[in-house]
């Protein structure tokens, strides 16, 4: 029997992978995917609770998150492409324009 706990643990693991991925990877694209990973782990939690509590609220939230994430991907990818065009790299170590 798969319980709520299983879902939550899975979600936690995916979220952690996402966090660590954002922190340690250098490629902007991978970091971007890790962010998606984090978002979706949260979505998973929403769905799990929605089932558990017998309420549709969580699922509604997931729709919102998905649509916002879609928009975010569009903008984010556009930025990354432009950076690549300018610098011929997507390595975040080299993209530190906001430095002091």
């Amino acid at each position, binding site marked *: 029997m798969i319980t709520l706990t299983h879902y939550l643990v899975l979600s936690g693991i995916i979220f952690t992978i996402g966090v660590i991925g954002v922190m340690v990877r250098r490629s902007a694209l991978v*970091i971007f995917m890790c962010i998606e990973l984090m978002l979706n782990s949260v979505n998973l939690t929403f769905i799990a609770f929605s089932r558990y509590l017998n309420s549709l609220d969580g699922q509604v939230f997931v729709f919102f998150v998905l649509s916002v994430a879609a928009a975010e991907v569009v903008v984010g990818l556009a930025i990354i492409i432009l950076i690549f065009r300018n610098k011929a790299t997507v390595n*975040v170590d080299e993209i*530190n324009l*906001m*430095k*002091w």
Partner: protein
Amino acid sequence: MFEYIWLIPFLPIIGTVINGLLGKKLGDRVVGFVGCTVVGISFLISASLFAQLLSLPSESRFFSKVIYTWIGSGDFKADIGFQLDPLSSLMILVVTGVGFLIHVYSVGYMHKDPGYYRYFAYLNLFTFSMLILVLANNFLLMFVGWEGVGLCSYLLIGYWFEKKSAADAGKKAFVVNRIGDFGFILGIMLIFTTFKTLNFSEVFPKAVDAFSKGDPTITLIAIFLFIGAMGKSAQIPLYVWLPDAMEGPTPVSALIHAATMVTAGVYMVSRCNALYTLAPDSMTLVAIVGAATAIFAASIGLVQNDIKKVLAYSTVSQLGYMFLACGVGAFGAGIFHLMTHAFFKALLFMGAGSVIHAMGGEQDIWKMGALRKHMPVTFLTFLAGTIAITGFPGFAGFFSKDEILWEAFSGAYGSPALWLVGIIAATFTSFYMFRMFFLTFCGEFRGTDEKLHHLHESPGVMTVPLIILAILSAVGGYVGVPHILGGSNVIGSFLAPVFGKGLEGKVEAHGGGESLELILMGVSVVIAVVGLLVAYYLYLANRELPHKLEKKFKGIYKVLLNKYYVDEIYDACIVNPIKNGSIFLWEKFDDRFIDGLVNGVASFFDEGSAVLRRMQTGAIQSYMLSIVIGAVVILGYYLLK
């Protein structure tokens, strides 16, 4: 007709506006015309108001009109209000009359000066301020005029501001006057806290009703006001600015520093006679300061070589006489002398101006001489002025000065000692005036040949005012012929309603008999003649003797020539300590402490942020790390709590 009183000060200010704003475009002729006309019309209005005042019975000669409530706040109320009574009507006549003549004279004297329009704008502004001063019906408005004339005095002394000595003299006059004004302000404040009003017509009756003689509050008020008068009227110890004020154009010296502005203090003390008579101590102070100034300044005048400096010290000395008169309770005599002095001193200054004009700017009387032949009109008018100031019988100065000396001897607060000081000062006056007169107009010319060719009589626009003033100096005294000479002292009884009956009556009662008055009169005439003869003997008959005397009394001569070193003493005791203290505060306190504090705060943040900004690495992953750490810490806190 009295309703039009506001026109009297208003017209000159129109002149200021026109000349000040448009003068450059209008050209010198129009500027001169406007400047003179506004004052001339003012004079005509003043004269007609004066005539109307005379037609009223003497006890109802009072008119007051509030034009506008200037400040109204709680108890405090100050109006723009004018008051016409015998005293102020006499003052406006002198101010506009003598002022008009000096304006006309200036047209000639300032001819071709690059700042012509500026000069006339200032001169009109001065007339305006002076009229406000004498017409005001309350202390605050009087103070406005008081400050206004001070400002104009500063502007006109420093009129040739590109000359350092002129700019310095202007500054000195302003600063010294400020010291006096401080006393005046304190006096006004004390009057307000004591009487809850500043109107003359309320303060004086209240003072008489509510306070007994010698009340300390009244004494304090009177002394504060007198400090103001000391500054404006150049009395010891604040007289030092007046001789330096001679840096201004000569007509300015005539108008401001001889005939009108410097007499403001005398006017103010006379206006407040009700307060002064309530405070006998302050009267004594006024009398002593006046007498001391009279003799002190006259003694400096004995050896000065600059024609304007002699007249300047003479002015200080004559102002001393006026205060002496006020101090012994003879306010009428003080105002009488103020009037005659305005005539003959304005005449003397303008005569001196005419001489300087002819000499091409030379002011040293030792480089003049024999000007009689070259400038007959100036010579004759100057002679009239000299005779008037030295007090020869029949001329203006004789009647007014004699009345003062008589009151100093026998008046309510007088004493023979004050009379003695006055009579010695009169001797000095006679001596230095004739010394200057002989050196300038008689003997032979001691200047260069070039100057001799240049000598010429001044144009009519300058000599006509001289002639008018000479006539006034000759006959102006007949308004105050004393009873003993068969006169009725018209001016005294005209002013009596302002100065109260009590005092005048006392003077009569105190009088030591008619023969004494005649004897004293004789003494002052003899004294005047002695001064004349000594001057003649020294400077015309035995020309070598003055130099021998100089050598013989070298010590005294040097002290007098250097004006008792008063300027040096003030520099050493007051000016330099303040200067050094200011420099200390500037360099040590301001530069180091205040600036250090402000700059310290700035550099603290500057350096602090230099450290902190290193956190902005630009590497998003390090930001991410901090977010995660933060989240973990917060989460951990709530989980482990």
